[in-house]
C-alpha cells in the first residue's frame, strides 16, 4: 500500500491518495474516505442484492474480527479468503479488531492475548492464533493485534499496560510475518492507543512509528461501543492532534468509530484519513434517518426557501437525523429527505417507515440502511470536494449550524 498527501488544507486537513491497495492494483482511493462497515461479513441488514441498490460504494469493506474470528477454521478450509466467503469479493477487505458499534466487555485482555467477543462468547486471541486467522481470511489489509481496552476513565496503570501489550503484540506479529508469505502481501496497520493520557499516546505513537508498519489505527478512546459521548469534546481533539503530530506524513491514519458528521470534521482537521460507515448503521438501529445538509455550495437562506424538508421538519428541530418512529411522521407522505436520490427515497415515504417502525418489520432496517449509507457516503464525497475547493470551513460552518442539542442525534 502506498499513500501520499496530495494537498494539505488549512495546515492539517489532508486530501490524500491510497495506491496499490491489495488486489486493486491500478485503482486509487481518495482520502478522507470511509470503509464500508460490516458485521459478520455483511453490511448489517443488507444482502448482496440489496447492497447493490446503493450507488458509489467505497472499495474497501471493514471487517472487525470480533464476530468473524471464531469461524477462522471454516474460512481456512474454504480456502478463498473472507471476502469471497462472505460474498463481498467486489470489495477489498480491511480486518480490524473490535466492532465500532458494539461494546467490548472491559478487563479481559492480558499480556498474552486480547479478548474478542463473538456469538459464542469470549475468544482469547494470542499472536499465534491471530496470524492463523489472518492467513485464513487473507484480507488486503489488517490492523495488528492490539489492546484497546481504555477510555476516558481508565487508570494510569491500565493505560500503560494497554500500550505495552499492543507494542509487544506488534513485535511478535512483525516477526511472525517474516515467515508468512500470505501476511507479507497484506498491509499492516499498527494500533496507537494510550487512552486519554498524553504521555502514553505519545509513547505509543513514537514506538509504533519506529516499527515497520504501513499505516496507523487510532483507538483506545472508547470501549463502550457507539455510546461515545466524549467524542467531540475538547480533550479528545487535543489528544488526537498531539498524537498525530508524531506520525509521518506519508502513511495513512485510520479511526474506526461511530462518528457524527461534526466529529468527522474535527478528526479530519486533526489529520485522520480513513473512517467507516458505522454511524449510518447506528442511526438505522435507532430508527433514525440522516437528514443533515452537507451541500456547502448552497447559501443557507436558499435552502430554507426552496427545500421541501423545511415543510415537513419543524424549524425547532435540530440534529443530523430525524427519528422516523416519531408519531409526527405518521401521515408524512414525503420522502425520508427531499431531493435525496437514493433507492429508498425514490419510492418510500416517512409514513411507511414510521409504520414499519411501529410494527417492527425488518424492512425498516433495509430501507433506512440504504438511505443512511447513501447519505453518509454523500457527506464524505462533499467533504473531499470541499478540501479540493478550499471550502472546508464552509462545510464546517454548515455542519456546526446543525449540531444537535441532545447528544444522540
Amino acid at each position, binding site marked *: 500500500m502506498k499513500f501520499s498527501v496530495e494537498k494539505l488544507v488549512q495546515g492539517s486537513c489532508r486530501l490524500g491518495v491510497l495506491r496499490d491497495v491489495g488486489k486493486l492494483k491500478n485503482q486509487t482511493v481518495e482520502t478522507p474516505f470511509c470503509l464500508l462497515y460490516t458485521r459478520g461479513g455483511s453490511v448489517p441488514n443488507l444482502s448482496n442484492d440489496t447492497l447493490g441498490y446503493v450507488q458509489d460504494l467505497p472499495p474497501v469493506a471493514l471487517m472487525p474480527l470480533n464476530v468473524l474470528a471464531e469461524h477462522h477454521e471454516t474460512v481456512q478450509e474454504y480456502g478463498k479468503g473472507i471476502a469471497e466467503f462472505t460474498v463481498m469479493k467486489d470489495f477489498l477487505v480491511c480486518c480490524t479488531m473490535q466492532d465500532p458499534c458494539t461494546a467490548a466487555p472491559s478487563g479481559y485482555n492480558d499480556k498474552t492475548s486480547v479478548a474478542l467477543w463473538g456469538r459464542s462468547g469470549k475468544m482469547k486471541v494470542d499472536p499465534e492464533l491471530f496470524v492463523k486467522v489472518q492467513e485464513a481470511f487473507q484480507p488486503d489489509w489488517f490492523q495488528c493485534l492490539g489492546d484497546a481496552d481504555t477510555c476516558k476513565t481508565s487508570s494510569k496503570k491500565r493505560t500503560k499496560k494497554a500500550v505495552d501489550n499492543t507494542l509487544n503484540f506488534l513485535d511478535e506479529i512483525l516477526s511472525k510475518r517474516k515467515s508468512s508469505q500470505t501476511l507479507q502481501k497484506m498491509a499492516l496497520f499498527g494500533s496507537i492507543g494510550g487512552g486519554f493520557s498524553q504521555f502514553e499516546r505519545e509513547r505509543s505513537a513514537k514506538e509504533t512509528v519506529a516499527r515497520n508498519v504501513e499505516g496507523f489505527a487510532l483507538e483506545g478512546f472508547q470501549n463502550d461501543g457507539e455510546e461515545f459521548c466524549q467524542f467531540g469534546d475538547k480533550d479528545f481533539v487535543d489528544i488526537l492532534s498531539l498524537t498525530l503530530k508524531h506520525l509521518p506524513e506519508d502513511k495513512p491514519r485510520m479511526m474506526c468509530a461511530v462518528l457524527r458528521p461534526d466529529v468527522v470534521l474535527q478528526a479530519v482537521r486533526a489529520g485522520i484519513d480513513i473512517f467507516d460507515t458505522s454511524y449510518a448503521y447506528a442511526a438505522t438501529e435507532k430508527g433514525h434517518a440522516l437528514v443533515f445538509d452537507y451541500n456547502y455550495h448552497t447559501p443557507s437562506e436558499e435552502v430554507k426557501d426552496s427545500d421541501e424538508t423545511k415543510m415537513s421538519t419543524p424549524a425547532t428541530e435540530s440534529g443530523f437525523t430525524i427519528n422516523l418512529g416519531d408519531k409526527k411522521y405518521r*401521515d408524512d407522505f414525503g420522502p425520508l429527505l427531499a431531493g435525496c436520490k437514493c433507492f429508498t427515497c425514490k419510492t418510500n415515504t416517512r409514513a411507511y417507515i414510521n409504520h414499519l417502525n411501529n410494527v417492527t418489520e425488518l424492512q425498516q432496517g433495509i430501507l433506512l440502511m440504504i438511505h443512511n449509507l447513501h447519505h453518509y457516503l454523500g457527506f464524505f464525497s462533499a467533504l473531499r470536494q470541499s478540501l479540493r475547493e478550499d471550502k472546508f470551513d464552509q462545510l464546517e460552518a454548515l455542519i456546526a449550524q446543525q449540531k444537535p442539542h441532545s447528544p444522540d442525534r
Partner: protein
Amino acid sequence: HSALSLKILAECPVTKARACEMKLPHALVKTPVFMPVGTQGSLKGLVPDQLRDLDCRIILGNTYHLGHRPGPELLEKAGGLHSFMKWDRALLTDSGGFQMVSLLKLAEITEEGVKFQSPHDGSEMLLTPEHSIEIQNAIGADIIMQLDDVVSSTVSGPRVEEAMHRTIRWLDRCITAHKRPHDQNIFPIVQGGLDENLRRQCAKELIKRDVPGFAIGGLSGGESKEHFWRMVTVSTDELPNSKPRYLMGVGFAVDLVVCVALGCDMFDCVFPTRTARFGCALVRTGQLNLKTKLFAKDFRPIDGDCKCSTCAKYTRAYLHTVATNETVACTLLTVHNVAYQMSLMLAMHTSIIEQRFPECVQKFFEDMFPEKNYPDWAVKALASVNIVLK
C-alpha cells in the same frame, strides 16, 4: 363487470388439477399459485423489488393487523396499501375474523359480528361483516375475503352447522357492503367443519351468489390430514370450474402438491417465510436447518439447481455463520424459500400444460420421500384422483 377473469390454459386429464391465468387489476397471475404472506404491509426482510425479481405476482396482507396499524384512515390517505407499501402487483386480504378468533382468547361471536377486547386499550370492539369490508375497501386489495364465522376445525356438533349458516348470512351482508366490486373481488368462504354434508350444502349455497371466486376455509387448523384432504376434495367437487379456488392457510410442499391435484388454485401460508427466520431452508428433500453444525463447513449452495440470488452466491457455511444472528440471514433465506415455493408452483403449472402432471407429482414424492415412506393420507388423496404412488 367483475375485476377478475380466469382463463383455463389446460386441465389434467387424470386429476382435478388445472393450469390457469387469472387476470386481476394489478397482475396477471399464473395458477396454481402460492401467495407469500406480508402480514403488516411488508414481507419479512424483503423489499418489493426482490419479490418482483422472484416473479412473485400476488402477496397477502392481514386485515386484522392492518386495521390496527396503520389503520384504514391512514391507508385511505395513502391511496391504499399498494401505494403505501410500493407494491404494484396484486394483493389479497383476509377478513380479519380468523386472526381475531385465533389471536384473541376473549373473542365472542354473535349474529352481529365478532366481539373482542382491543389488545391495545382493552375496550370492547365489534368487527361486523360491514366493518371488515369497509377496512378491506380502504386497503384496496385485488381480492378481498368475506367475514366468516370461524370455528376451530377440532370442534364438532351444532356449533359447526350454525357457523356454516351464519357464514352464508354474513356473505350477503358483505356483498351488500362492498363498495368497490369494479376493482376488488370478493371471495366467499366454504365452511362446514369436517362434515362432508355441511361442506357440500355450504358450497351449493355460495355458488348461487354472483362472486368472482371461492375460498375453502376452516382447514389446516389441527384437524387430521385424513379429514383435511376429504374436506378439500368435497369442496372442489361442488365449486364451479370456471372460477378460482383458494385454499386458505395451506403452504407445506406436500399439502400444496396434493391439493393442486384435488383442484385448488391458490394457496397462502406464513410457513416458508416464518421458517426462514428460524434459519430453515426449504429444499426438494425437505428442510435444511442451517443453524446446525452439519452445515458449518458445507460450501455448497442451499440448492444447486435453485435459480434464486441466494443460491447463486451464498454457501451453506456462510449462512450457518450468520443464520439467525444477523437480520441479513432472514432476507437471504426468505428469498430462497419464496423462490422454492414459486418454482414448485411453476413446475406444477407447466406440467399441467404439458399434460404430465401425474409424473410431476410422482417425482416430487420420490424426491421428498426417498425411502418411499409416503404419508398414508397423501397416498389415499392422490389415489382418489387416480395417481398411484409407486
